[in-house]
């Protein structure tokens, strides 16, 4: 039997791959969506509502007993990281896309805000994003469902920040504040990142992939761990080779176009593993930039207690985790570094009381001190933008293989001078704002930690210094695309998923158009 050749093979089913595959299917393009993990029933498989005391080690596992594993490290499972994300959804601003033009550091995107705006619009209408219209130059407004009220504790922080001239706004999230498209609104159980079991929070499996399967144009192939993107001697990618997650049996699927959307580091790893005579150092790596320009966000953090709430009754205020945000305010202030930071806060889940061990003393006094402070606990996490540097990159560690014999991806993280200046300043501002809000500080982290992995496969207008063009298309191989955070040439300080989804929608339109015109 002749093997079917799909129009497009998409590797990875998270917010990028899921959005892209669904959009392509909607355009009538035949898509095979290949995902390393199993199908997960978001209604029944996650431990969304468990309590720590249900488990002898008091650690709530992601999956219910007997359910197929969700690999958190590589987010394998249909829906990828969108299953367990916190759903924060910002638009990047023109300044975010043109950082280098503004302050001379890092890299510009080869596109403008106006190129992305229609796709942000489209994603917001499609998946539902709640938020307020704030009219901020650096945080463009969109089509929002009503914002969710701020918590009492948010308002205390807001008042403290206002004394310093710092703005606190409603968070914007891809979580429904009103029923939409058959999905219920959020019920504020506070367990978003354990996996939302009613799909009030967006996930690509339920919101994009499942409906798109009904078009008849999308075939989902789970449990298929892609180990190689195949390339022909005519410099065309022809499909992917995979290993069955359970049986390790080899398989392949062919396509006219291949899109890699495995979530940043894993996308880079797949391309580095896809060596050939044409591309001895990794597929599409003629620039030598594959794996370089790795620019994850870095965060620190302050733990504190709002004095006003110490000794007050505990409230049911987990909500949908963070309800408020401190948008970047340093772009317009005097500073000795490039770029900026924003602050996420008050997203703690009150089922976890890990800070109690750091309260001093023992006996009744200790117990009372924890009881009094419990309603007042608050976490504060500034996120800074990293600039690319030579010592921060992703490569393969051939000395460490996974269960399938594939080398592990290795993150080599190094903070440059500018990054450390931002870290110092964002930590100082965090303490300043919290003290102004009347907080008792418990701990201040002095160690930058990475989150929101970005870069490694950056887009750019110069094929010598970038891997992709503005359409997420390989400079080297015209029918190869990489669509996820790895394509970001600069990171902004804003949570990136909304921009990944808009980028996926934009790229899907481009691929569908090019296939129609037989340009691919």
């Amino acid at each position: 039997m002749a093997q079917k050749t799909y129009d497009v093979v998409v590797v990875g089913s998270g917010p990028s791959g899921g959005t892209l595959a669904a959009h392509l299917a909607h355009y009538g393009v035949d898509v095979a969506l290949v995902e390393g993990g199993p199908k997960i029933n978001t209604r029944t498989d996650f431990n969304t509502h468990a309590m720590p005391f249900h488990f002898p080690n008091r650690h709530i596992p992601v999956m219910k007993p007997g359910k197929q594993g969700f690999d958190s490290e590589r987010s394998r499972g249909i829906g990828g990281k969108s299953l367990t994300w916190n759903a924060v959804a910002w638009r990047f601003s023109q300044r975010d896309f043109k950082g280098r033009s503004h302050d001379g550091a890092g890299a510009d995107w080869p596109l403008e805000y106006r190129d992305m705006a229609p796709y942000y619009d489209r994603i917001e209408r499609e998946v539902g994003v709640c938020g307020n219209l704030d009219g901020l130059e650096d945080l463009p407004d969109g089509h929002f469902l009503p914002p969710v009220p701020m918590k009492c504790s948010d308002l205390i922080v807001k008042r403290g920040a206002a004394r310093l001239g710092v703005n606190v706004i409603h968070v914007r999230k891809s979580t429904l504040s009103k029923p939409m498209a058959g999905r219920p609104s959020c019920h504020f159980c506070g367990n978003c990142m354990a996996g939302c079991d009613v799909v009030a929070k967006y996930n690509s499996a339920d919101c994009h992939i499942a409906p798109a399967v009904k078009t008849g144009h999308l075939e989902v192939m789970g449990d298929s761990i892609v180990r190689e993107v195949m390339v022909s001697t005519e410099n065309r990618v022809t499909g992917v080779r995979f290993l069955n997650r359970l049986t390790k049996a080899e398989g392949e699927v062919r396509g006219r176009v291949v899109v890699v959307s495995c979530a940043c580091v894993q996308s880079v790893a797949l391309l580095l593993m896809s060596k050939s005579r044409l591309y001895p150092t990794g597929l599409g790596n003629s620039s030598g930039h594959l794996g370089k320009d790795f620019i994850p966000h870095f965060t620190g953090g302050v733990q504190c207690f709002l004095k006003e709430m110490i000794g007050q009754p505990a409230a049911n205020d987990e909500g949908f985790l963070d309800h408020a945000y401190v948008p970047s305010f340093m772009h317009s202030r005097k500073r000795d570094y490039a770029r900026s930071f924003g602050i996420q806060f008050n997203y703690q889940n009150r089922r976890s009381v890990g800070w109690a061990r750091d309260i001093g003393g023992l006996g009744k006094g200790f117990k009372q001190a924890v009881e009094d402070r419990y309603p007042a606990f608050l976490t504060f996490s500034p996120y800074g933008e990293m600039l690319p540097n030579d010592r921060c990159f992703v490569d393969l560690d051939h000395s460490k293989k996974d269960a399938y014999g594939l080398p592990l991806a290795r993150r080599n993280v190094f903070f440059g001078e500018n990054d450390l200046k931002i870290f110092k300043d964002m930590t100082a501002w965090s303490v300043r704002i919290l003290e102004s809000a009347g907080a008792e500080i418990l701990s201040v982290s002095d160690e930058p930690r990475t989150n929101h992995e970005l870069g490694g496969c950056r887009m750019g207008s110069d094929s010598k210094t970038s891997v992709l063009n503005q359409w997420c298309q390989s400079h080297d191989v015209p029918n190869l695309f990489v669509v996820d955070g790895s394509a970001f040439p600069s990171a902004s300080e804003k949570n990136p998923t909304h921009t990944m989804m808009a980028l996926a929608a934009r790229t899907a339109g481009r691929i569908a158009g090019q296939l129609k015109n037989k340009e691919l």
Partner: protein
Amino acid sequence: MADRRETLKIIGAVGSTCAFPYSADELYGQHAHQSPNAPAPPSKPLVFTPAEMALVTRLADLIIPATATPGAVAAGVPMYIDYVVSSSARWRKLFRQGFAWLQREKFPELSEERQIALLTPLIEQADKAKPGPWRQGQARTEPKLSTEAAFMKAFKSMTADGFFTSKQGLVESLHYAGNTVLAEFPACLHEH
């Protein structure tokens, strides 16, 4: 019931104009928060002897005593500590040293006052101990603590972790109120 009405309203609102409607056949029904089918805790200690369990129970009771709300012992913290210690050779060694020290001090025979007097300076030492500053590319220096203080630091951390994640700690002592279904998030009515 408000929840039921809310659910029915939601089911009635299935979108027909959205390009990607959430499939009606997969609509969730009544949303009940259920406890998971969790494994049963072990019925007897995995590593501690009866004499060691007695020491652990006494220490846990001193760190988080019963007040108007239950304390560490009623919350099963000694069994939790046994569980944690069983999982690591490092903890087993530290606890062996800690138990030997308590025996040398004839801890079980001391009055409560003298037990507290013995532990308090060690807890204070442990509370103050902080690791060295972060430096890129270097391991942090661990705080220097005597074996007894290191033991008490670990013991207090395990007691706090075990108690405040127990039902007695989280629900009865701290009054955890979350993990519920709210039709809408209540706006704050305080003056701010």
